[in-house]
């Protein structure tokens, strides 16, 4: 096990990348702590899988270095890196039994038979496949196959890291929850560095201590779920995390106040002058409907069970608010107010830190 460092890393699938647009991964410097549980979150095609494949050595980066601990492994083959990886779609060796499938990575590394047998029993119990160990892998359902893939990923104890590339896509929802919980307890027990790629925020937030949000080939924020929620570093994080995402409103920021549509919103902190497109971001959870504040037009109300989402418009810009259960929509003259200190300021999509922070 070791710390993984990405130094000045960038990757392009083209042989002669010209501009920044040719890069699937823009230059980045990141350190993944030993034993951390990370989730790599982002929309499809933002470079998550590329980054994962670079760490596991399936793809060689066009620029920069990859270090495991202090050792440079940029040019090391996958097998030398001692990494486990589970792919989005199940990979099983059809002609082998479930047992042989699980034993394959160990047998290839010349482990002794007694150890392999013990280890297979542990893993089989973990993925709930003890009863099927001697069945051919061929003809099993997709989720059984994916469980085998997960099992094969976890069977080695000495790996530097376990990488999961959207491994639960094909698994049914009930099993998804269970496997995710197991992965988490496995992480606590053995302390492997785990990197979990997903585009599902719930999956990311429940699995990881640290969530890494990627957007357009860039890591836009690496932080705890709370940080991502309270202070998104980029408008994409605000929009992508949360349901619905953060409200973004064009505004002018002057000191500790923002001006929009002729009204003034207190920001809770003072800001220096901003350049470019300035927006304020406020989570729907922190928007309260009341009889004072900014005037909005309510378009519709969606009941999602635990609470209701109010879809409104503020001077032509969409604004969502969350109405906690039990509360009713004020009958007339709907206005909204923002919880103080929960408003973030963005210039050209990046968060601006308040003065003195």
């Amino acid at each position, binding site marked *: 096990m070791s710390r993984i460092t990405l130094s000045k890393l960038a990757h392009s699938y083209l042989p002669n990348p010209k501009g920044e647009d040719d890069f699937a991964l823009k230059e980045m410097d990141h350190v993944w702590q030993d034993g951390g549980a990370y989730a790599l979150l982002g929309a499809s095609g933002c470079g998550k899988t590329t980054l994962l494949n670079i760490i596991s050595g399936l793809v060689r980066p066009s620029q920069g270095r990859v270090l495991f601990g202090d050792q440079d492994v940029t040019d090391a083959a996958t*097998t030398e890196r001692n990494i486990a990886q589970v792919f989005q779609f199940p990979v099983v060796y059809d002609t082998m039994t479930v047992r042989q499938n699980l034993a394959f990575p160990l047998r290839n590394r010349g482990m002794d038979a007694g150890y392999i047998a013990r280890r297979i029993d542990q893993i089989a119990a973990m993925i709930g496949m003890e009863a099927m160990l001697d069945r051919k892998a061929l003809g099993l359902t997709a989720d059984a196959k994916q469980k085998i893939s997960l099992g094969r990923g976890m069977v080695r104890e000495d790996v530097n890291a376990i990488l999961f590339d959207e491994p639960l896509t094909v698994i049914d929802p009930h099993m998804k929850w269970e496997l995710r919980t197991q992965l988490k307890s496995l992480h606590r027990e053995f302390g492997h560095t785990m990197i979990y790629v997903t585009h599902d925020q719930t999956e990311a937030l429940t699995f990881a201590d640290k969530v890494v949000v990627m957007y357009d080939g860039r890591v836009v924020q690496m932080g705890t779920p709370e940080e991502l929620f309270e202070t998104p570093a980029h408008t994409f994080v605000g929009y992508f995390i949360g349901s619905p995402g953060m409200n973004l409103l064009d505004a002018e920021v002057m000191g500790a106040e923002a001006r929009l549509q002729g009204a003034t919103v207190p920001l809770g902190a003072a800001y220096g002058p901003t350049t470019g497109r300035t927006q304020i971001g406020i989570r729907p959870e922190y928007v309260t409907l009341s009889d004072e504040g900014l005037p909005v037009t309510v378009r519709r109300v969606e009941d999602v069970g635990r609470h209701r989402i109010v879809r409104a418009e503020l001077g032509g810009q969409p604004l969502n608010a969350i109405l906690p259960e039990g509360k009713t929509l004020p009958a007339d003259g709907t206005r909204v107010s923002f919880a103080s200190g929960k408003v973030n300021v963005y210039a050209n999509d990046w968060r601006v830190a308040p003065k003195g922070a």
Partner: protein
Amino acid sequence: MDKTQNNKAWFLVLPVLVLVAFSAVLPLMTVVNYAFNDTFGQNEFFWASLDWFEEMVTSDRLRDALGRQTLFSAIILAIEVPLGIFIALNMPKKGFWASLVLILMALPLLIPFNVVGTIWQIFGRVDIGLLGRALAAMGIDYNYTNDPLDAWFTVIIMDVWHWTSLVALLCYAGLQSIPQAYYQAARIDQATRWSVFRYIELPKMKGVLLIAVLLRFMDSFMIYTEPFVVTGGGPGNSTTFLSIDLAKMATGQFDLGPAAAFSLMYFLVILLISWVFFTVMTNLDREENR
């Protein structure tokens, strides 16, 4: 899910049935007629019951031809299948070279059988052929017209040249359908090259490989044109395979009765083997979809 049964769909097969009846079934009935009767011309037939079949089954000539035929099919399968797999594994997977290699591989398949025969007949000639002259220049005593071993060598090499592409292209298609993740997983699992072949590539190729073996077996078991053009079945009878022998008997000697009995048995053997293959393949499919 229950689908509506509509047996009227069978009518759509009718045109084909009529066509096949006139082009294959009716002529075949003539063969059946000859197989059970004796004739001296003038459309007069005398019932011969199973005499022709008995004659053919006990005939040394037929047995020798069958032996040669089986040996020939076995040899070309033993060469073409492994060679085809080997070539498919080493073909470029994408880009310009992949297209070029695909075209080059497909070329032999596009050449008419008699032309293939002619090419090799000339290629192997000791007086003007490139192969014959080259071998002679190297001091190798090669002459497919009077040495049975050389004749076999030529006929087999010709078949390998003509048909290995088919096996290779089918395997190539099977290989291309393997998702990249399998190879990546194998690298993560530290599988050896042999393991990748044994546990990933071979199982995924199994279906197409069976079809390749079936096609090559059928084709080689019925081979006629190419060896006929090159060696004419000689020297002696050394390259007289079943269909060459059949043609000699029917159109050379006009032994229509025995030839008809012979061809019926020949037909049944091929039908039987196809059926066995078909059963094996559908069972494999069922196992996979279980």
